[in-house]
């Protein structure tokens, strides 16, 4: 197969039709395990490279091969990246779901489909473009495992032609994807061009959807949240990373494993300044994190719901014995095994109270991939400053899907190792591990290996006095537990502050956290366009501080929006602000799919009709 030239002309718009430019969604329906991800990323990245904001979401099954999977690409000149319930452009390449997929298309939509799909009806109100896959594959001469791969490239060519995607940008996209291995790029481009040409010759565009170059992605990157988080921990000073595979956290560890050897090998010795240990299960993973944290490492693990449940006993130990450690919980849908490849925010209460007895843990709540990167540092800093377990609650949508972002700045947050005494300090001032010398609830600790006979203390999960000596005395217990509460209160203003976007004369406030912000931002714009002004606070951590109280105080009603069934954040916020609790109204919804702006607008309007005057 020789390198081909593509037809120079993009598909002409049908006459008399107003183009719909840079504002639609594409959904590619394929089967799992066929490698369609490369094709989908190529389409998305090419559009991105044309300067148009995009977002890609993979809706995949809990399976390795053969089950339906959908890739959603949102194209939005206005920069909206939330999921949309319905896509206008369908690539129907999976027989198993094609009929239903076609049904879901809105009137006026586009259906690009394999011409060998059985039983696919024709829809008059949809532009139907058949692709003769077998014929084209034969033309290419693809055999064996290449058939699947090239099948995916076929639709790239057709989509590019129909939507007017610049083939040079497709080439660029593949170049990035294949890490400059030109041979691979060229082989794939050949297929794409062949189909592009085939489309130019055989298809007549009857739909209005097109992309047109913009300048809105200059200086921006595309990345998944898990990649960003992994990179963040590498720059955050990670030294011990432990893990046990579980979707959707595994790819964060993949990133850690990819970046560490590139950036953290000691230049002099050629040796590793980090250890990554694949544990036998989550109990061991968190045990290693705490052992390492105790001995002075910046240690972390990544997991998801079932892992959190298994880690509970150790988290309680970390809270009580005051040991730093970081747990990234890339949330999926629970309870139990639940929907392991779907997104949600259902572990807020389980993480906040993780452990038995009275525990309360610090939670970080990233909402952007940039925050995933930043919290790589922040989480370790907080864990070491507060000598406790810190959770970072990302989710599958943020972690595994591909998002735009400004280029990450070099972290301005310095590495903070917390209150650790040196041998000299111990010799000079003495040492009582759990004494609250500064009134902030935080004691001073020493690390094993500190060269002083006075530096040692005994760490345990049982009652103790402020000198770390075993104690069952009621007073010692009360002192310890009160101090832990005081420490937690100190954390309120030390954790990342919420982000607030206020509008003057707003009718009400909205509080959310994490990835719901994308649907909410879009919803707020729509509401504003309809005349309803809203203010928005996005939480980035628990426990809450004064800013949250102020925000709630300012508004008559505050809607707390989250992706779970029970309104877990709503519960926590009402508990924290009992005097304002009736102002806070819960919007809790979890069906495994990222929230849409439509849903948010409808629910807000519906509830406003009830609660607003």
């Amino acid at each position, binding site marked *: 197969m020789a390198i081909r030239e593509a037809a120079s002309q993009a598909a002409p718009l049908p006459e008399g039709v107003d183009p719909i430019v840079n504002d639609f969604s594409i959904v590619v329906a394929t089967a799992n395990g066929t490698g369609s991800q490369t094709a989908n990323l190529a389409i998305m990245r090419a559009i991105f490279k044309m300067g148009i904001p995009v977002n890609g979401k993979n809706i995949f099954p809990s399976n390795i091969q053969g089950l339906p999977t959908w890739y959603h690409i949102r194209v939005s000149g206005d920069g909206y990246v939330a999921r949309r319930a319905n896509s206008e452009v369908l690539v129907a390449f999976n027989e198993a779901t094609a009929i239903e997929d076609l049904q879901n298309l809105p009137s006026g939509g586009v259906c690009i489909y394999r011409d060998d799909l059985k039983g696919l009806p024709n829809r008059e109100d949809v532009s139907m473009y058949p692709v003769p896959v077998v014929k084209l594959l034969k033309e290419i001469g693809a055999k064996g495992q290449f058939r699947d791969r090239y099948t995916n490239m076929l639709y790239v060519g057709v989509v590019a032609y129909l939507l007017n995607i610049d083939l040079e940008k497709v080439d660029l996209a593949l170049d*990035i994807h294949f*890490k400059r291995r030109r041979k691979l790029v060229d082989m794939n481009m050949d297929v794409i061009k062949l189909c592009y040409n085939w489309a130019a010759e055989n298809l007549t565009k009857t739909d209005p959807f097109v992309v047109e170059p913009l300048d809105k992605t200059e200086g*921006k*990157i*595309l*990345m998944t949240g898990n990649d960003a988080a992994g*990179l963040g921990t590498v*720059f955050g000073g990670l*030294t*011990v990373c*432990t893990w046990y595979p579980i979707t959707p956290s595994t790819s964060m560890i993949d990133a850690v494993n990819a970046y560490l050897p590139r950036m*953290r090998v*000691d230049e002099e*010795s050629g*040796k*590793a*300044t980090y*250890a*990554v*240990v694949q544990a*036998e299960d989550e*109990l*061991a*993973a968190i*045990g*290693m*994190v*705490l*052992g*390492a*944290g*105790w*001995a*002075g*490492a*910046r*240690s972390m693990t990544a997991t998801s719901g079932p892992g959190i449940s298994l880690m509970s*006993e150790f988290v309680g*130990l970390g809270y009580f014995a005051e040991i730093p450690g970081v747990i990234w919980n890339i949330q999926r849908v629970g309870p139990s095994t639940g929907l392991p490849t779907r997104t949600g925010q259902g572990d807020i209460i389980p993480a906040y109270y993780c452990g038995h007895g009275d525990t309360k843990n610090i939670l970080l709540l990233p909402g952007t991939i940039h925050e995933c990167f930043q919290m790589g540092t922040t989480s370790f800093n907080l864990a070491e400053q507060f000598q406790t377990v810190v959770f970072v609650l990302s989710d599958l949508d943020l972690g595994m899907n591909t998002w735009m972002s400004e*280029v*990450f700045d*070099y*972290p301005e947050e*310095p590495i903070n190792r917390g209150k650790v005494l040196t*041998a000299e300090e111990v010799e000079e001032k003495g040492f009582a591990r759990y004494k609250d010398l500064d009134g902030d609830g935080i004691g001073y600790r*020493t*690390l*094993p*290996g*500190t060269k*002083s*006979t*006075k530096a*040692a*203390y*005994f*760490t345990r*999960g*049982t009652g103790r006095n402020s000198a770390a000596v*075993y104690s069952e005395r009621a007073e010692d217990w009360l002192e310890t537990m009160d101090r832990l509460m005081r420490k937690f209160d100190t954390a309120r203003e030390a954790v990342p502050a919420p982000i607030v976007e206020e509008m003057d004369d707003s009718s009400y406030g909205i509080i959310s956290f994490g990835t719901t912000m994308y649907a909410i931002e879009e919803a707020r714009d729509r509401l504003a366009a309809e005349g309803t002004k809203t203010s928005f606070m996005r939480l980035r951590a628990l426990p809450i501080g004064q800013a949250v109280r102020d925000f709630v105080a300012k508004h008559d009603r505050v809607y707390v929006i989250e992706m779970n069934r029970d309104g877990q954040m709503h519960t926590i916020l009402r508990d924290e602000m009992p005097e304002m609790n009736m102002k806070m109204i819960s919007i809790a919804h979890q069906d495994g799919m990222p929230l849409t702006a439509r849903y948010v607008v409808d629910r807000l309007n519906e509830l406003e009709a009830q609660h607003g005057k």
Partner: protein
Amino acid sequence: MANRPARGPKVNAAGLSKADYNGRPTTLCKGCGHNSISSQIITTCYELSIKPWDIIKLSGIGCSSKSPAYFLGQSHGFNALHGRMPSVGTGALMANRQLLAVGVSGDGDSGSIGMGQFKHMMRRNVRMVYIVENNGVYGLTKGQFSATADEGQFLKYAGKNELPPIDLCIEAIVAGAGFVARSFSGDAKQVRTLMKAALSYNGTALLDIISPCVTFNNDESSTKSYPFGKDNELPLHDLTYVPSFEEIEAVEYEPGEMQNVDMHDGSTIQLRKLEEDYDPTDKMGALHRLQWAEQKREFITGLIYYDDKRKPLDEVEMLVDEPLATLPDEKIRPPKEKLDMIMNELL
């Protein structure tokens, strides 16, 4: 500090007296086997002149696991969760590979709830002395059978034990451990010698020490009792540990009677064989001997298995020499150029 100070014979090469290695007063029962083991840990560290800050002590939960509070009071200690000492130890030694580590666990702690972590620590070969104070019962919860209790044994409170015992030495060997020893808390000298050798070992060294629970399982009908141990201990060899800085004494022996095991730090274990054919470097022989002993209710002690071919985890991970815990900020946060490089790839 390398030379002995002038104070006289009461301090070791580290300038410390034996009392400097004490912990808090024990709260275990009088006569508990675990107390003797604590004493041997104290003596061993004193005799080896270990600096208290160079060693950490770790444990799970149980009477045995409480004991780290009762030795090495000037060393950091971590009394973790039931059955989870191995993971905590693994983490700590990743954070600081220069530390010596002594882990203390119980038969319930390692054989029941902790079986998984026990096995996987052996697989990983984390550099640590792993002591199981094995009494065949859960002491701290007052005398239930543990996984190492004798099959068919009867205890007034717990009734009859219907399950076969787990042999932690066998478990360790089949999981990949390279230093596996069994001893008896009543045999102070052997315990001490094995402990010294274990501290020299370049990986996980298991010491399965039968340590009678005088309160709940000390009847002579139990293989974990003092009377049984005293009457039946069958050492496979006489052991001598020769630290790297000492000369090996040349003594005349019959051919085949003596075996020397050279350790990676230059020290040597001298075995004078009591059981003629026993060669602790033969894995299948070791397993065979253990199986046989179990069937015959023989209480063999000594260095059951030795092999030093596997690397410890810190070497597998190719860690820098300094502790990860105390690397300076520049070493744990890459420079700006590296971030720019990545960002450029993604642009």
